[in-house]
């Protein structure tokens, strides 16, 4: 990808900048536009409503109108805020969730960074979001913001443990930290996906399936908690905390938090896909292979990756409009008393099975 861009532009630095900005403008912004609308439509249909219907045909332009409104809005900074931190926080939160996209393999032709420590990098960089959220809550000088950010930080840090344990399980199984290598191991057909025991053969593959399923459920639950989605949305519990850590933000800064939330939603879905569901690989061969067009394969891969990722985003929405919010003690209960022990047991059993 860099080589192609360098050839076209002739300057390596410009090519790198373009390659780095590509996922933002080609993927994250359009995705956020569609996802916000989808969220509202899904919630409406689940509640037997219609959702936005007035802006454009079937309300399809609703998010565009919302973005236009947010751009026009006054950027309010309250007088008692810590201005430097207050202005820095949304950028940090967005940077944290955007940086995670660097290591996500969209297709075999475009991987931001094929670093050998891909998944490790994602875990590390998404902790930057925690700092940003705490910064936003603290700098706002507002009790609701502070409470929201404290809850958020407590929650994200707690749920990183079961998530990391499951990732450790998968790293043990595949023997690599690189997401692109992990994806390459799950190639060809869907029974090679990790959720179906990965590239193992024989009895071990069948034995692995239930434990992979447990791992997937644990990881999916903790990823929900890490992106502050319902049923784990106590950091921004509307009925208790106004809006949580972004209570004091308006205009584009609020939009950045919003964008970061939707970017995060896709990022964790992408990790789930890469870890368990074959990454960018098609579940049944490629059309490009069949008719012998080489450049079609990366396009198909991008298509499959988007479809799988979007599916898990939709499931997140589905859960959000199904489940009520957990209480703080219930939240910690689920994490420390249930997810972590199960994740440990799972880790040990998968470890034994891979030795077989």
């Amino acid at each position, binding site marked *: 990808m860099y080589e192609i861009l360098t050839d076209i532009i002739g300057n390596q630095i410009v090519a790198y900048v373009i390659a780095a900005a590509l996922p933002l403008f080609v993927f994250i912004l359009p995705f956020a536009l569609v996802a916000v609308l989808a969220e509202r439509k*899904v919630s*409406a*249909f*689940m*509640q*037997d*409503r*219609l959702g936005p*219907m007035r802006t454009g045909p079937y309300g399809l332009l609703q998010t565009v109108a919302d973005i236009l409104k947010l751009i026009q809005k006054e950027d309010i900074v309250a007088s008692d805020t810590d201005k430097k931190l207050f202005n820095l926080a949304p950028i940090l939160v967005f940077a944290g969730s955007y940086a995670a996209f660097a290591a996500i393999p969209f297709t075999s032709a475009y991987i931001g960074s094929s670093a050998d420590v891909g998944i490790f990098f994602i875990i590390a960089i998404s902790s930057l979001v925690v700092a940003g959220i705490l910064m936003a809550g603290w700098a706002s000088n507002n009790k609701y913001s502070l409470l929201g950010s404290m809850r958020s930080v407590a929650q994200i840090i707690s749920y990183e443990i079961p998530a990391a344990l499951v990732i450790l399980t998968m790293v043990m199984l595949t023997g690599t930290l690189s997401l692109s290598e992990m994806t390459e191991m799950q190639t060809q057909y869907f029974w090679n996906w990790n959720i179906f025991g990965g590239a193992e053969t024989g009895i071990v593959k069948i034995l692995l399936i239930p434990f992979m399923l447990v791992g997937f*459920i644990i990881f999916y639950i903790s990823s929900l908690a890490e992106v502050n989605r319902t049923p784990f949305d106590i950091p921004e519990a509307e009925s208790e905390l106004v809006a949580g850590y972004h209570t004091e933000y308006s205009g584009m800064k609020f939009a950045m938090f919003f964008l970061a939330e939707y970017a995060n939603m896709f990022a964790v879905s992408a990790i789930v896909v890469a870890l368990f569901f074959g990454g960018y690989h098609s579940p049944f061969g490629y059309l490009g292979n069949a008719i012998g067009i080489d450049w079609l394969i990366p396009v198909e891969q991008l298509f499959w990756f988007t479809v799988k990722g979007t599916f898990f985003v939709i499931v997140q929405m*589905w*859960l959000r*409009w*199904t*489940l009520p919010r957990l209480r703080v003690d219930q939240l910690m209960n*689920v994490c420390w008393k*249930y997810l972590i022990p*199960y994740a440990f047991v799972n880790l040990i059993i998968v470890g034994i099975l891979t030795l077989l």
Partner: protein
Amino acid sequence: MKQYLINTWQAIYTVLVGMKITFKHLFVPSVTIQYPDVKQPMVDRVRNRLFVNMDDCIGCDQCARACPVNCIEIETVKSVPPEDLGKTSQGKKKALWVTKFDIDIAKCCYCSLCVYPCPTDCIYMTDSYEFSEFERNDLIYKFATLTPEETEEKKANFEKFQAEKEAKKAAAAAAKAKAAAESKPDDKKE
């Protein structure tokens, strides 16, 4: 330990049950009515905006007298003989020019008491309920069909007619008095 496993199972199971319910509702048709485009039909006897069919109004003032909040104001002028106002749809003869028929719908309490006494059924409740205005004065509905000039003309006509009548009367009275004075001087003498 047993309770622990039961809790785990129940957590997963109940979430799946909830997800099944919401999934079913994805395909339930929406109950939303797109209001300004689609309106729910009103029941037959709704009482909303008043309407007066001026073709049938005979200016009897009964509705104004029935109104408990005095929101109807009617002024009438008698027609003079050569003018023919025609008949109402029910065959009643109209004898009055209705020069003013104002309903202040802002005052109206939708009691429908004005509807019952109307002898020609020309005032009635309609099912139109969207008539908000920016100015309160715009809520005074003027039903009178005559223009101000016509009103003036009718008034002048009537006054002229009245004056002529008075004059005639006076003349008649004077003539009578004169005649009486002429024919009965003898009686008085007696």
